[in-house]
């Protein structure tokens, strides 16, 4: 029991890092993804094409590679090259990557709202922006909840990739203790922590789905 309390401190610190990466990424990637999706479905062909290319790039290469690139290679790129400390580099990589996945989820959700809704809004005099804001996006939210739930749970676990930047997240903290003390107990505790975080998320999304169940499409 004493041993358990002893390792709890470092593991909780690791959890704090994991949660920070998770929450900041979510807070940045959701709006960015929404912006990308809106450009993607807009009638601006060139901009839409550029976004498609961006999504292809971000989904087509490993997240770890993107993170390594931003941390190690970006400083040497001419003009845009900046040297980011490890935490901002990790956030940048996660945000850019997850925004691409979110954008695809949002795009599918936006496009699943039928033409009749657009037409009804148009004949009532709503502009394109008003139609999006009042009619399409609110209906999109209900439809994207299941894939968003999936994706955010994946994000919780993906945060463990930041070990490549030598940051002390939950998994790295656990591994450090395992290697020091020759016991697998920290892994079990870490697993329980991850499970708890995904449980909270699952529950949160269930609440949301219930809230949106007041109407049917």
């Amino acid at each position: 029991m004493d041993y358990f309390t002893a390792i709890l401190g470092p593991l909780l610190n690791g959890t704090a890092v994991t949660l920070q990466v998770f929450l900041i990424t979510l807070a940045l990637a959701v709006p960015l993804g929404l912006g990308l999706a809106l450009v993607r479905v807009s009638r601006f062909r060139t901009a839409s094409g550029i976004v498609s290319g961006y999504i292809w790039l971000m989904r087509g290469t490993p997240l770890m590679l993107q993170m390594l690139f931003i941390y190690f290679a970006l400083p040497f790129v001419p003009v845009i090259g900046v040297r980011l400390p490890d935490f901002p580099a990790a956030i940048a990589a996660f945000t850019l990557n997850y925004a691409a996945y979110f954008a695809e989820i949002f795009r599918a959700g936006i496009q699943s709202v039928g033409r009749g809704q657009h037409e009804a809004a148009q004949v009532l005099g709503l502009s394109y922006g008003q139609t999006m804001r009042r009619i399409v996006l609110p209906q999109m939210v209900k439809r994207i909840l299941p894939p968003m739930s999936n994706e955010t749970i994946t994000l919780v676990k993906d945060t463990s990739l930041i070990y490549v930047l030598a940051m002390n997240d939950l998994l790295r903290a656990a591994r450090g203790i395992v290697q020091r003390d020759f016991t697998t107990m920290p892994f079990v505790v870490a697993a329980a922590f991850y499970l708890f975080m995904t449980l909270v998320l699952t529950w949160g999304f269930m609440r949301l789905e219930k809230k949106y169940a007041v109407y049917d499409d």
Partner: protein
Amino acid sequence: MISAQGIHKRFGSTEVLRGVSLHIDKGDVVAVIGPSGSGKSTFLRCLNRLETIDRGRIDIEGETLVDTDAGGVCRYAADADARRICRKMGMVFQQFNLFPHFTVLQNIIEAPVTVKGLTREAAIPPAEELLRKVGLLHKRDAYPSHLSGGQKQRVAIARALAMEPDIMLFDEPTSALDPELTGEVLRTIRQLAEEHMTMIVVTHEMAFARDVSTRVIFMDGGEIVEERPAAEMFASPAHPRTRAFLNHLA
């Protein structure tokens, strides 16, 4: 009120409207009939810019929505103007197209609040009055998915009326309904006709067209074949195609 001249519209290589012209005066109730695929819906949708035309001219209450110059180039009014012009027309769809995430009341006040800039408080009393008129005040807080088809369509009519249009366009408002539910919707439209609302109604309900409309238009193959006062059209259709169509229905 509405003047459409020489409207041409094609989808790809098929010409769906081949020079349709129509004048609507205040208080007219025009029924548009004709076989499936004759271009009735497309014509109605061209009037309020749900479809853009390829050639011709449309004026709504003296304002030009679209015109075609001598070189054959079709020009629409600027987007904000076109939206303002089209707002004079309300439209009711075959598939209702209510907003499923809004309650009945929210459906009705959405455009007055968002488009006209009314406060919710100011928008609610007239919305409730409209609901009373279509007999659905008791459903004001229900979501559309909890309504029958006939109730949905009456809400859709109230929603269109909330923008105080001068003209109402109906595209087969009862075709998606079970037969026993068409009556309540037709009664509502009939009531509007009695209040001298200007209307264009695409319909397959011949009895309704005969009883309610002031004029009937028969369309076939993307053209207006015949246009007559309702009583005459059904008693003695002049054109063989009209006769064939009406006989086929009878």
